[in-house]
């Protein structure tokens, strides 16, 4: 609860028009893109600059009011669902690209900038910002940094973390710090930049970021390999990597996913095959030609029924866009769509695909799989119905077993979506008790009153580890 006195102080900082505690105003910030999580904040606040953020945080710290920083609410781990109430802090005023530095190849932005707007702005200058989460048309750069988002180009170019050079952060006590810089080398103290990337708003509020840019690749080519056997597709992925080719994109889509994506996109995707790989390479044309040709051979050797190269950029773009819609398109099947992003070393991808199918069968649930196969990051997705409690329980058990299997194969419970609340009960499986303790020590040191997105990352209790019988 926010007392009237505190409310008046907050309003005096941001102005009446930037503080909303109406029922409707709060309700529309009670959720993100994660199913089954909804909780009303006490108010929504829209600061106009870093100083205002700092002043807000000081008041919240004094009165122990939770703060949830929120971009566009597209995350998939309930990371921005205000489960403990408090203030949802939005960045609609802090959404400017501050500088594109063509000498140092960096871009400096405020957190509210939409990822795709940033990509377009730097591409207009012949520069390239590779992280491209499927939500990039909607999601903000602040959200991407807090969740350390990946994307389709992660295999070759890495994820958001690999492009964050410097941050401005408001800490829980209201202090404003600056980490890193436009520097290729910098070992002055702990790497706090990396600490804040992927911290899910639990350590501080990012108010500005300087990101690394690279030159635009000269050319790119896109192809689609079709399979009648899921594991053959997965084997192709491992074989491509083993042949020392790192394509930009190496995406996997199974038949049920293909069907719903085609129902939405209507671009003539094959729906009569068991799986496809969407493969892309960029770079100098001779390298691209050579790699594409070699990958085509590998796919055919691994029983691809056909391999088609996109004939135009428009065709390639349609394929990428279709792939990005996969999760939302799966929502066509059933009212609730639960997805995970268990990740394994890429050499284990075929085993993981096989395990997912066995688990689905064991618990009698439908699991559609798509994802960034090239970097071992799969998105097994279960179309279900939140109203059917019995089925939901089976779904949860199935996913628990998938998490366990991923860890057994040397993988992790989440590759790019974050822990949030959804995966918090499983974090200990990955980190161990000591790992959790180390992380909690950091959290307690920076946010002793636990006001920064409380209830996220660390669970109140850990799930009992499932024992795999097979």
């Amino acid at each position, binding site marked *: 609860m926010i007392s009237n006195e505190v409310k008046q102080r907050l309003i005096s900082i941001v102005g009446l028009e930037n503080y909303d505690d*109406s*029922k*409707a*105003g709060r*309700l*529309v*910030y*009670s*959720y*993100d*893109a994660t*199913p089954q999580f*909804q909780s*009303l904040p006490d108010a929504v606040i829209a600061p106009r600059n870093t100083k205002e953020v700092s002043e807000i945080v000081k008041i919240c710290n004094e009165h122990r009011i939770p703060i949830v920083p929120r971009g*566009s*609410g*597209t995350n998939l781990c309930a990371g921005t669902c205000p489960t403990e109430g408090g203030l949802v802090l939005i960045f*609609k005023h802090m*959404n400017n690209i501050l500088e594109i530095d063509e000498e140092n190849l960096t871009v400096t932005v405020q957190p509210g900038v*939409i990822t795709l707007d940033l990509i377009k702005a730097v591409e207009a200058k012949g520069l390239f910002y590779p992280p491209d989460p499927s*939500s990039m*048309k*909607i*999601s903000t750069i602040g959200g991407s940094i807090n969740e350390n988002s990946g994307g389709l180009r992660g295999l070759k170019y890495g994820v958001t973390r690999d492009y964050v050079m410097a941050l401005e952060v408001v800490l829980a006590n209201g202090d404003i710090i600056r980490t890193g810089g436009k520097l290729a080398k910098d070992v002055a103290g702990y790497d706090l930049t990396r600490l804040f990337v992927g911290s899910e708003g639990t350590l501080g509020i990012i108010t500005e970021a300087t990101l690394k840019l690279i030159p635009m690749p000269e050319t790119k080519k896109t192809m689609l390999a079709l399979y009648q056997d899921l594991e053959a597709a997965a084997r192709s992925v491992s074989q491509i990597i083993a042949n020392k080719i790192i394509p930009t994109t190496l995406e996997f889509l199974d038949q049920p996913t293909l069907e719903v*994506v085609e*129902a*939405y996109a209507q671009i003539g995707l094959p729906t009569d095959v068991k799986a496809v790989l969407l493969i892309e390479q960029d770079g100098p044309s001779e390298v691209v030609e050579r790699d594409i040709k070699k990958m085509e051979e590998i796919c055919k050797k691994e029983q691809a029924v056909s391999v088609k190269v996109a004939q135009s950029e428009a065709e390639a773009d349609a394929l990428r866009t279709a792939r990005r*819609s*996969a*999760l*939302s*398109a799966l*929502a*066509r099947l059933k*009212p*609730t*769509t639960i997805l995970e992003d268990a990740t394994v070393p890429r050499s284990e991808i075929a085993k993981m695909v096989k395990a997912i199918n066995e688990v689905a069968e064991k618990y009698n649930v439908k699991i559609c799989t798509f994802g960034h196969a090239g970097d071992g990051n799969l998105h097994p997705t279960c179309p279900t*119905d*939140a109203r059917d409690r019995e089925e939901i329980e089976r779904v949860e058990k199935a996913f628990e077993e998938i998490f366990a299997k991923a860890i057994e194969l040397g993988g992790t419970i989440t590759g790019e979506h974050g822990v949030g609340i959804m995966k918090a009960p499983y974090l200990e499986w990955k980190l161990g008790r000591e790992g959790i303790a180390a992380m909690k020590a950091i959290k307690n040191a920076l946010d002793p009153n636990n006001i920064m997105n409380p209830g996220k990352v660390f669970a109140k209790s850990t799930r009992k580890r499932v024992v795999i019988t097979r």
Partner: protein
Amino acid sequence: MTTAKERKVMQQQFKERMNEDELMNCMRCGFCLPACPTYIESGFQETHSPRGRIALMKAVVDGLIEPDEDVERTLNMCLGCRACEPVCPSGVNYGHLLEEARDIIQQNKKYSLPVRMLRKAVFGGLFPHSHRMRTITGLISFYQRSGLQRIVRNTGLLNLLPAQLKEMEKVLPKVPTLKEMKHRPEHLPAQGETKRRVAFFSGCLMDTMFMETNDATMKLLQLAGCEIVIPPAQTCCGALHGHSGEKSQAKELAKRNIEAFEGLNVDYIITNAGGCGAFLMEYDHLLKDDPAWGERAKAFTEKIKDISVILVELNFHKKGLKLPSQVVTYQDSCHLRNVMKTSAAPRILLQSIEGVEFREMKDADRCCGSAGIYNIVEPEMSMQILDYKMEQVKETKATTIVTANPGCLLQMKLGIEREGLSAHVRAVHIVELLLEAAEASGFTVNQQWQMPEHIRKTS
């Protein structure tokens, strides 16, 4: 203000009437946000986004919140342009949800007596009755032709109107006389070989205030090889009713139209207004709870086609049309694009005209802010959206703005007035430009509709 008891009644109706599966189908991915004009123009307020509105409707159903003034406000702020639907990978039928929610709120509304009477007069007493539509339009005609318009404009009487309506008065088309409107064709032959037999949905506003557009449409159909039937029993499509929370009246109109067009043995039913066409096309949804009408509605909706689609189907774009050199841009009609899924045909037709340089404007698929009567009830947001639209128009340097719906046409004319561009920019309905091109290229209809001699003489 609504009382707690009234809100409770409304809440119960939300529970009973809203389609829960459809509400749950929204998985809140937010793919709709960048397509929503009110989300963008409100400075990225989730309350004014499709995802936010669906969440609010669901929260009312779930009992999380009451249907209070704030909820109503966000639903009113929606243009109903449905740009969120084609971009929704989950395929949520947002338009249907919105219509149902608005109907519930509207039917529970306690209007003051004057407003109640006005709504009753307009929705029940005016649009469904073609003779009354003609009378009203006839009065406007008298106003325009008698010299009264000049007097009113000169005396500054218009200053008594809100700025919005004052500007509207300027952009009204020159309307036909009462006599002209009373004598409308019921059947027209094809020019040359008869390739299709079609029915023409003439509409209420289109057959009165925009009669010239209807005449142009029919001439084009004839030139393209269509024999046309225009059943006189047809009536207003009911879109205005449906979108304004008067669903039961919309259903009655739908039934009258289905009856009027049944058994005509036509290939298609042609429309020339995106707003009407889209509503006609969804009669099967409108009447879904009425089993006796299900099949009949479906047969009707399957025949609905926009004029641009049939013209392309009949290769009108290969006729070799010419116009004096000009830059043309096209503003999509939201419902034509998002509901009737027609966006390529108008562009194919425009690009086929020799002398026309077609320049696509940025965000041509974004609503112009007309949205039925939105520009009258939500003038502030409407004008903000229009100003953005006119910026994009100006970027193209087009001298002709083409639209495919009467509301959009008036809004674009309004935009031209507001920007002070009327000296060198015009807005036209696509059929008017096509007919202009056809006539300039030597195509004329031999057996065109002509008013009986004695009427023409006296009018």
